[in-house]
């Protein structure tokens, strides 16, 4: 009978083991790009990379909006997202939070756009619209804006010579040294005979590379690696998946994979201080905390918005 485990992750974060069906199509996976024969764990190699930039973003819906049209109410949301980088200067050693950008965005359905009144210094929303009315679609648009901002920042930093580790799958597949770092396992990408090698990984080891999304729009090299050997964990505890653009040549991809496998365990979090240990990396957790602070106090913003809208209504003579 299979063994049962309680995940160390706090329940509100969801299960780190979730299915991602899209990319897991066996036809689009090539698990022979690096090793054709029997897979063995590969130890990582720390090449002493000087600066590692961890890129991440956070978002928050500040308020739900409604445009009261004669034809019926049009839903909208307004929210704030922030992106930035935690740059780990390994020689110093010190990590600095850099390039923080805060953006406020309102998204309306039905293709409608209404200006959101300025609610205070640094509380002004840009308005966009989507054609549908599904609230999920509004949030998706908002989320996409944040992901794009993350991608732009990652690419900028990579071009400046940083080794970029982005939280989540990579969107921009240009041939720069960016690694996407996926904490949750949505689907087993590997075939039944390859899978057991993941369980046999020790801290600082990885699987051989495999190509996913072959022949598709977003092909990339990927691998599994273990961040920490946590006592009492199941065979996949502490395992993350990482990916790089397949526009990089294979040798470079292997070098980056080796480096990532060696370096990320150094910044893995510990279960006593982090509910998503070890996957939530220490610099990324700190970056998220900082970004949330830069977004401003949600209660304060919500009140400021209500006041601004009320002021506007009074100004145009609409009774409350």
């Amino acid at each position, binding site marked *: 009978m299979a063994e049962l485990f309680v995940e160390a992750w706090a329940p509100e974060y969801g299960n780190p083991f979730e299915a991602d069906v899209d990319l897991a199509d066996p036809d689009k996976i090539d698990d022979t790009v690096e090793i054709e024969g029997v897979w063995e764990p590969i130890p990582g190699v720390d090449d002493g990379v000087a600066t590692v930039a961890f890129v991440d973003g956070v978002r928050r819906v500040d308020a739900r909006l409604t445009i009261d049209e004669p034809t019926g109410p049009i839903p909208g949301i307004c929210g704030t997202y922030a992106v930035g980088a935690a740059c780990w200067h*390994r020689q110093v050693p010190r*990590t*600095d939070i850099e390039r923080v950008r805060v953006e406020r965005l309102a998204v309306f359905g039905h293709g409608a756009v209404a200006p959101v009144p300025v609610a205070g210094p640094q509380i002004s929303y840009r308005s966009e619209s989507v054609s549908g009315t599904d609230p999920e679609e509004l949030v998706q648009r908002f989320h996409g804006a944040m992901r794009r901002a993350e991608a732009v920042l990652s690419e900028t930093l990579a071009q400046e010579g940083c080794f970029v580790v982005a939280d989540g799958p990579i969107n921009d597949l240009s041939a720069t040294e960016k690694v996407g770092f996926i904490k949750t396992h949505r689907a087993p990408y590997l075939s039944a005979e390859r899978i057991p090698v993941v369980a046999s990984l020790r801290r600082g080891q990885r699987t051989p590379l495999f190509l996913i999304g072959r022949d598709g729009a977003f092909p990339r090299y990927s691998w599994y690696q273990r961040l920490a050997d946590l006592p009492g964990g199941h065979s996949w505890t502490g395992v993350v998946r990482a990916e790089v653009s397949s526009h990089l040549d294979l040798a470079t991809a292997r070098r980056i994979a080796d480096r990532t496998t060696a370096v990320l365990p150094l910044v893995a979090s*510990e279960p006593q201080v982090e509910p998503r240990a070890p996957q939530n990396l220490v*610099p990324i957790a700190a970056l998220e905390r*900082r970004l949330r602070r830069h977004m401003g106090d949600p209660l304060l913003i919500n009140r400021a918005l209500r006041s601004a809208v009320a002021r506007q209504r009074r100004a145009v003579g609409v009774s409350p």
Partner: protein
Amino acid sequence: MDEVPANRVGPGAGVGRVLGTEHTTTSGFRVVLNDDDYLQLDDLVVVRTEVPKVGEVRTYGVVTESEAIYEGAQYESDTHRIAGEGILPAAKVRSARVAVTRVDPEIWVSPDPGEVVERAAGEERRKALYVDEMGRPLPIGMGRDGEPVYVDLDFFDGRKGGHMSISGISGVATKTSFALFFLRLLSGRPDILGEGAANLRVLVFNVKGEDLLWLDKPNRFFDAEAAHIWERLEVPAHPFPSVSFWAPPRPSSGDVVVPDTGGRQEGVAAFTWTPREFIDEGLLRFLFTDSDDTRNQIPFIEERVRAQLSRFAVDVEGSPGAVVLRDPSEGHRPGERVIPHRGEPVITDLRSMVDAISRFVDPEDGSEPDQKWAGRVQMGTVSAFVRRLHAAVSRVGHLVRAGESRRIDRTRHQVTVVAIQSLHDLGQRFVVGALLAETFVEKETTGQRLPLSVVVLDELNKYAPRDGTSSLKDMLIDIAQRGRSLGVLLVGAQQTASRVAQEVMENASIKVAGRLDAAEAERAEYGWMLPSTRARARLLKPGTMVLSQPSIPVPLVVEFPFPPWATRKEEVDERGEDPFAGL
């Protein structure tokens, strides 16, 4: 939207900004420091706040604590991640706590968060320390910033307040050194002391060692650094220019009167009182200063005997200062000199006086005491009284002798040092009592505040203890309460303020403390200190004092320089000249 600046605080105006994550108040606030600056304890700062309807209000303050933390660290182990591995981003945030000293104009509002905090320098510093409002600011030492700290003399010399109280542990608190330093400033800055400087008289008791017997000698360890500070204080770095030294005579020196001092004989005069002076000034009361003495009826009989002595005493022809006791009913006139009858006991010292008193109150033939002398007190009380008198003979007997007057002449020099360290406790209290009474009576008679008379008394707890009563304690309380208007100013020092009579402590306008015992520092007597000052008072170095004065609401820390006068024989510069005269 623009990029948000990086996580560290860059250089900016001033030294930092008023912290905005907690409430600022009119009593204090915190400052977040710029990366490229610092504030240390006792630094003075100023913040400008724009107040609606009022305009700019400046808040002045003094730094009472300095703090630093990693912002972004949530767990103690994060410190390793930040400083050791460098994988956790964090900002080192340094801050300082400020106690408000002044708000100008007096609109009592708290400073705005985020306002720039600047060091108070020049005129701003003077304002922070209320120097601009002081009647007569006297630099009383240096602040940590190397600039003078001032005390308002109006609160010392009786105009608005009087007296100074100095507390601290023996040996490290440098109480006496500070008192003398202060005296030197008083005598060295007539320009500030003003009218009180003329004929200023200082009475200093040397109660331990012989530290004060070298005030007129240069100190050979005095260096250029100290000289520089004296220069900043604008006081000549010389020993006291006008000092006289007095000591009791050696107890068994026979007819030759030799001062009872160890290291120094030259320039020290022996002092005694004649029986006539003893009786006229009622010094008998200072033989009963032990607090035990007041628990029975001894004061009653002492008072009676004192009165009778002064009625009965008649001068003796050919023996200055000696007296015989004759009943006033025999009809002698004041100032009359008589030739003693054959066999009539002549009082030439304390022993013969005690014998004469005994004849009235406790006759040897066992007959009843003379009720005019002993009153109706019980025999036991009379015996106790006589027993104490006899004890006094062996302890202070050598201080009373007929012959030429050797009383202390306080007018001869500006500073009069009276060395009583060789005397028994009883003798010390006797001398202190006698001299204080003399000083006080003198001023009471004139009723004038000027010229000022300053008295420096260490171990005040011995003379004015919190518990019990004695004529000496009563007098010290009297001085504390009325001395201010009569120009008698007490500079009292004690290890523990909690053991000194409350009335004496309460009347001291200027309070000073050196290093304090940890338990002592927590007592109510030190309520004038801030909690942070109190914690620091346990660590103060010799030469550093905490000073409180009515014109500044927070205590200040001052450092006073090494003295140019010697405090031990070994320190005396034998060359006799000031090696830094040219500096």
